[in-house]
């Protein structure tokens, strides 16, 4: 199992995440244009107040991106201090992974917050099929949540790889998962903007 390739070992997974980002961007662009067209000549479009909770959730997600940036710096430093080479004989200690786990908790809290926001809306009688505004609200937020769940799994996987002895590729796994996570953050900011302006 050997190959000679012209790029660095972590490159494919990073390229893969960028391709994934392009795909997800394209699909949300499709939903956006669907929203514009559907709203364009609709007589049945009823605007509604976004739950205030969404702003709090936004802060949670922004905070998670910040803690993830800390986590990466911290993990990179401990790796260099401990290993100094490409191999790590012992996995990272829990204290060195604290920021990563804080990020994970914030991500899960965000999902919980979204769940509460949906419940608030259904409490007001706004369901998926109630009117086109609520339809698009649920479609966009649920799809974002599902994609974010993928990000949580990615970060958790990076965590399990960093805990055990291994090679530098564990770091590139973290790098790829981080890239995706920040993208989820940016995507959410875009969606908030869209929902605020359009719904």
């Amino acid at each position, binding site marked *: *199992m*050997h190959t*000679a390739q012209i790029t660095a070992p972590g490159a*494919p997974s990073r*390229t893969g995440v960028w391709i994934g980002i392009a795909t997800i961007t394209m699909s949300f662009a499709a939903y956006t244009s*669907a929203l514009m067209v559907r709203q364009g000549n*609709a007589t049945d479009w009823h605007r509604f107040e976004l739950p205030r909770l969404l702003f709090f959730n936004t802060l949670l997600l922004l905070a998670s991106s910040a803690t993830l940036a800390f986590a990466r710096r911290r993990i990179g430093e401990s790796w260099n201090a401990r290993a100094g080479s490409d191999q790590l004989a012992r996995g990272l200690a829990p204290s060195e992974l604290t920021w990563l786990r804080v990020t994970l908790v914030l991500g899960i809290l965000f999902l919980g917050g979204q769940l509460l926001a949906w419940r608030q809306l259904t409490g007001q009688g706004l369901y998926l099929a109630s009117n*086109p505004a609520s339809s698009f609200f649920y479609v966009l937020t649920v799809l974002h949540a599902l994609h974010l769940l993928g990000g949580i799994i990615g970060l958790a996987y990076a965590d399990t790889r960093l805990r055990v002895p291994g090679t530098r590729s564990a770091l590139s796994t973290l790098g790829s998962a981080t890239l995706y996570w920040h993208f989820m953050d940016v995507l959410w900011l875009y969606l908030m903007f869209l929902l605020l302006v359009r719904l």
Partner: protein
Amino acid sequence: MDPSPALSVGPEQAHRVEPAHSGHGPPRGFFRKHVFSLDHKVIGRQYLDLALIAVATGMVLSWLMRFHLAFPSSPVPGLGTVAPTAAAGGIMTPELYLALMTMHGTIMVFFVLTTAPFAGFGNYVLPIQVGAEDMAFPRFNMMSFWVTFVAFLVLIAAFFVSEGPPISGWTAYAPLSALGKDAGPGLGLGQTLWAVSIAIFCVGQLLGSLNFIATTLDLRTRGMTLMRMPLSTWAWFITSIIGLIAFSVLLPACILLILDRVAGTSFFIPGGLVVSDRLQPHEGGSPLLWQHLFWFFGHPEVYIAILPGFGIVSHILPVFARKPLLGPRVVIACLVAIGFLSYTVWGHHMFLSGMNPLSATLFSVPTLVITIPATIVVLLWIGTVYGARMRFTTPALFCLGFISVFVSGGISGFFLAQPSIDTYLHGTYFVVGHFHFVMGVAAMFGIFAGTYFWFPKMFGRMMNEKLGKLHFFLTLIGVYCTFMPMHYLGLAGNVRRYSAFTDDYMAGSLPLHKFITMAALFTGAVQLIFFINLFYSRLRGPIAPANPWQATSLEWSIPSPPPFDNFGGRIPTVTHGPNEYGIEGQPDYIMQATLEDLPEHA
């Protein structure tokens, strides 16, 4: 001639020899080897097998339709027993005709024209041609196939639900496709299965495209610059970018359609619709929104089907012309231009949807412009063949046939691109003839060329040349007799999508329909020669050498069939472009790569 010598690779391509991280060793056990395999070669063959099953299914459906069109009052033997209500006494109802049409189109476009030339051959050949030992993400690759397989099963399941398959065509226009079972037979569960199947299919192809792009960008071997990649790999690479954008729009469209069907939303269903005497509980949806989303995918899909054929022909023609391909960089530029333009023309499928004539013109112009790069590529192929001492093997013949049918189908595109002419022709057999030639038959000829060309590599045995040539000539005659008359029918005003033309003003077209049906049945029967050749050669064909065609690209530097890790633990170093044919001396070609043993420490 490639001017850059082997040693002048740039600093960014430093001679880095890394252990593979495709992350899997040789498979053990039957399931790991043949079913849930991570090996791109097995996955490629699985895609091709799936396409073979799908194309046989789709072809049988087309025979049933053609039979009914030509002989509307004669029963099809056995059909009455298979479908006692939809075809009582063996004569199909118009609804069954539409159901067969829907399934024929869906199966052919998605599970044949996308899976075989792109996912099938691309998976098998692309990693070897760039010098990788597998795709970048073998697990995603395996998922890609099995997800696609599930999508196929879900689609086929529509045959077995009580009301049968949907009748809304492969384009599934809303609101017909969105309303549910009130709207007609097959539009209940059958249509839901259709939408779910296509959504699943999108996921499979997105995973596939992801792999193709990452592999091409990141796993090329030493010296394999982008410009040294064979044209086939270029075509798969560009196709995967097109696919990535196209399927990531079709997936949202399908999700919204499914929600309209099962969750009561109104994305595509307008208000005030009374269907089957019932006021539909929807309002405000936009049927045109579905058409826009669908054709934003749908037109690029045409190029997903045909660009791999462009690549295969550009790759194979020089091998048998024993001449370098004329203007390989221009061909690449044209493929990129086609890929880009394919996203600007979708509205030409919607000229009849009541769009503003100004928009129609805006879509018409790029539609005409996109013929320019396509024409340049065709001229370069003809220039490559011109004055060559051609070796007329079966793959070479199918490449020449590809050019023929592509040009025949492409020329009618000039007519259809103009809104004023399209207004008359769009609903007629002219369009059926056009897209079957340019997309269906041309892509099939690309698939045949690829099969005859790479079969020795895949199975280590040669296919029978005599049967191959017979297959080619009879198929060529058959497809021209089938699809050429459709243009005349269309010009004469013969509408499409009707199940029979007996009592109306089109009764005079019946003789020509009979001729087309005979030709279609003949063409289908001829494919038996291909099937026999395929299976017989697999078992009994003469043993193939490593490089039976004297071709230059990397797949011909390794044994037939290739070892599990493609290069047998050696490293290919690429020193030449793929196009070094017809040089002075013996042999008259230069291999792209030399294989080196791996250094001990790595």
